């Protein structure tokens, strides 16, 4: 069965599942720290192999854009609030990556991953106004009603790709 290893480094937390380490089945009650450096190196190596393998897995990343965190993957559309200083067709790189994950591993930044390790490319697809929403005020007993239809500006961004390079050791 798959065992998942958890290792830690000053900058980021690496979790990896692999068939290699299935020897011990320790509950968290009696878990011990066993040669953390060796385990860490093993985990880094495994993740690097995983990422560099020919058969590419689809990755997801959690990015911080425009005051909000988004979990994105290839081909996702995200709807950013406001008229951002971008024009349609601009290609941008989202560099505040909080975590990246794939089928067999998860990397958690503490708080961010190094910008060169993970690349999230995006294109600005559309600049638009959002659906109008009712802003309604009814003052009782005054025969007074205000109805305003508020709409906001939005910038739609498509995630082109989420890629990760090998993890440095």
């Amino acid at each position, binding site marked *: 069965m798959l065992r*998942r290893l*958890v290792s*830690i480094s000053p900058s980021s937390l690496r979790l990896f599942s692999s068939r290699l380490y299935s020897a011990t089945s320790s509950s968290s*009650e009696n*878990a011990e720290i066993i040669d953390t450096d060796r385990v860490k190196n093993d985990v880094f190596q495994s993740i690097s192999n995983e990422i560099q393998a020919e058969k590419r897995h689809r990755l997801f990343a959690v990015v911080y854009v425009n005051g909000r965190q988004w979990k994105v993957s290839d081909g996702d559309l995200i709807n950013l609030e406001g008229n951002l200083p971008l024009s349609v067709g601009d290609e941008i790189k989202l560099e505040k990556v909080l975590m990246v994950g794939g089928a067999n591993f998860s990397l958690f930044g*503490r708080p961010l991953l190094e910008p060169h390790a993970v690349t999230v490319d995006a294109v600005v697809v559309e600049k638009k106004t959002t659906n109008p929403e009712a802003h309604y005020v009814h003052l009782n007993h005054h025969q007074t009603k205000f109805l305003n239809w508020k709409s906001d500006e939005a910038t739609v961004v498509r995630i082109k790709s989420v890629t990760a390079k090998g993890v440095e050791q």
Partner: protein
Amino acid sequence: MHLSTTLSLRRILNSGFHPFQVIPKPDVWMKRERLNRFTAWQYASERDTVKGAYRKEDKIFTYLNMQRQDEPKLEKFHAEERVRTALAEHDMEYPKFKSILAQSHILLDNIVLSQLAIYEPRSFKSLVAFAKELARQEGMDVIPDDPEFSYDVHVDNKSVLRKPLPRAVEYTRGASENHTHKPRKLREDEY
């Protein structure tokens, strides 16, 4: 002689209308269309009568307004509920989990955590396992995972846990102080 009343002269003076025909009123069609836009799908008097339809329309707009105001709060609330539920599945408690995440400087918010729990269960489970192990080392009461399915966690709380990062300041709308009560007068010795 009071001719104005009998001849309706008041209607003739400075009027664009014919003196002796009924003054046309503005058509209600446009108003009814606007009303029916929201009430055409209602039932009974709320659809078939004007008065009922206006009452219903008022209600609909009030609900739309409430929905618009509550939406961002509801998003956060539901995200937290989902995270709590997901943690309950892994026998973990929300406050412990959040405090460990904060101390290890993992700044994922509840919205993303709930999405992880739903769509990336293995990542979420490994994160919970990580938090559990650290919580155990910190001396908190934690229910250990089932050894058959548990992950091997190799972490050390001394090297991982730090002081939590300062939280972002939220500037709420409105006055910063409550001015409904006047401040107490200073005593002489307090000057």
